[in-house]
């Protein structure tokens, strides 16, 4: 297998493609990988053609951000469903808030369904990079390794690709109300909202009261270095994501893998758990989806994570919950700053606040569902279960 170098191109296999970007990680700086669907002029047709953490599925699912974590980001691309007029899908990496340059990485790997390329990063001063492009050539799709970018980061890149960016979010010290994103028409807000102790709530506004698919991701790392006998995929830590849901008619539900209560997306409780990652080895962790178009019927949701197996110590899990609302900044809640040994963590509350989604960070620890239920006043009846 030849490794494509900078500038090199190769055909990709026919059919659906999986794109894996191996970028590793930088301490103190976050790397975001995005995909842009562009015309022959290398511009997006509209901001809806930008596939990123705030908009993980574009063009009716032709390109989806399939997950990220452990220094990797994956996309699924269905070339047959890419709309006419889109001639390229450009994959980019940006460093959040330009806190580092790509020169601090050794290299970035690109893998398009087995066609592999590598971008050496030594000496790079860029903070936004075009990694690779899938492009139409004589009716067939090919991939080219690009490795060129901008020192000016995401704004420069976005301008290059014809995306308008809303003003960056105010500094985290500002009161929560002012960090609530209100993107201007035809602009994409690229700020990422991190809910911390100081900045613990955000209100997501949507004019029509429909929020599309609200996706909640739980991801974590297996810490193998301190416990040498734990090998990935065997007896490591198993984290589960779950939710309490209350609809306006007063009905309450639990969605979680334990007890096989996976929920339902199109019917009450309008919340569905996708699969169950038992080891953390699935690089994008576990997903919970809320039907945001039915938000008017939902009164409140409590999102929680619990340690199903392994040593109950949250610091060891490096757990992160991300809440993704289409067209809104990603909300991130980290649990790794806590060493609490209680297995149950109430992560965030999503409440229907006059039709808007009000997200409040919790990160409180409990011995189990029952204990957490009591703390938040839900009033379920509990019995032991096993998955």
């Amino acid at each position, binding site marked *: 297998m030849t490794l494509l*170098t*900078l*500038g*090199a*191109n190769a055909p990709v296999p026919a059919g659906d493609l999986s794109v894996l970007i191996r970028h590793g990680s930088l301490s103190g700086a976050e790397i975001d990988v995005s995909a842009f669907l562009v015309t022959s002029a290398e511009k997006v047709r509209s901001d809806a053609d930008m596939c990123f953490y705030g908009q993980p599925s574009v063009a009716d699912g032709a390109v989806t951000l399939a997950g990220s974590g452990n220094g990797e980001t994956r996309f699924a691309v269905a070339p047959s469903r890419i709309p006419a007029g889109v001639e390229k899908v450009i994959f980019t990496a940006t460093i959040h808030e330009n806190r580092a340059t790509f020169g601090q990485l050794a290299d970035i790997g690109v893998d398009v369904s087995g066609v592999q390329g590598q971008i050496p990063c030594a000496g790079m*001063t*860029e903070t936004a990079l*075009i990694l690779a492009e899938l492009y139409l*050539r004589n009716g067939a799709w090919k991939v*080219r*390794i*690009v*490795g*060129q*970018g*901008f*020192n*000016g980061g995401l704004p*420069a890149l976005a301008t*290059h690709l014809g995306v308008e960016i809303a003003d960056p979010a105010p500094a985290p010290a500002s009161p929560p109300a002012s960090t609530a994103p209100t993107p201007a028409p035809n602009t994409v807000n690229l700020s990422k909202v991190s809910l911390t102790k100081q900045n613990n709530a955000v209100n997501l506004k949507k004019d029509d009261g429909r929020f599309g698919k609200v996706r909640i991701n739980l991801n974590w790392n297996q810490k193998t270095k301190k416990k040498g006998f734990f090998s990935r995929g065997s007896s490591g830590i198993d984290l589960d994501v779950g939710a309490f849901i209350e609809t306006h008619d007063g009905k309450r539900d639990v969605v979680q893998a334990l007890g096989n209560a996976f929920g339902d997306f199109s019917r009450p409780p309008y919340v569905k758990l996708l699969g169950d990652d038992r080891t953390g080895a699935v690089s994008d962790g576990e997903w919970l989806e809320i039907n945001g178009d039915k938000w008017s019927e939902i009164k409140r949701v409590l999102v929680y994570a619990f340690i199903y197996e392994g040593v109950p110590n949250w610091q060891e899990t490096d757990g992160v919950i991300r809440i993704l609302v289409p067209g809104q900044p990603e909300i991130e809640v980290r649990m790794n700053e806590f060493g609490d040994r209680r297995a149950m963590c109430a992560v965030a509350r999503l409440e229907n606040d006059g039709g808007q989604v009000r997200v409040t960070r919790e990160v409180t620890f409990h011995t189990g569902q029952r204990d957490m239920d009591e703390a938040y006043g839900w009033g379920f009846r509990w019995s032991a279960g096993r998955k």
Partner: protein
Amino acid sequence: MAISLNKGGNVSLSKSEPGLKKIMIGLGWDARSTDGADFDLDASAFMLGANGKVPNDNAFIFYNNLTSADGSVEHTGDNLTGSGDGDDEAIKVNLDGVPADVHAVAITVTIHDAEARRQNFGQVKNAFIRIVNDETGTEIARYDLTEDYSTETAMIFGEIYRHNNEWKFRAVGQGYAGGLAAMCAQYGINVA
């Protein structure tokens, strides 16, 4: 109608373009829109004798020597960035004016400072080289450098040569390491 060339393919210019008197070799690419060193591509021509070498330095037409002594081969000027539409550099050849002792004119394209700038054709957007009937504008042949010579930094585009009283074009399409200096060595020029 452009002819799609394979390496080593021959095109009889007098047959494909009867009455052809003037040809233009066009080199085009897009200016760099990302940050970093500009892409500076250079088209050059070597007027070769029967031995495949240039008789003197003046028979090497490039950015520092734009016109041959006889005036039959003319470079329209150096473009350092690729800015502008269409052909960014052009070499015009008046076939009737090419002296009888010139058996062939070799055309090359190189990236200036490719090694220091760590560049290749694949990193340049929309880079191409083509040969055109300069009187009608008809494109006779074209190579897409970005796509088909992506990992090269220099190539011999082809040779215009005399054969049985007609001019032919042989598409060489051979990548070449070492840039313009290596090309000069190949064609008998000592580079200072």
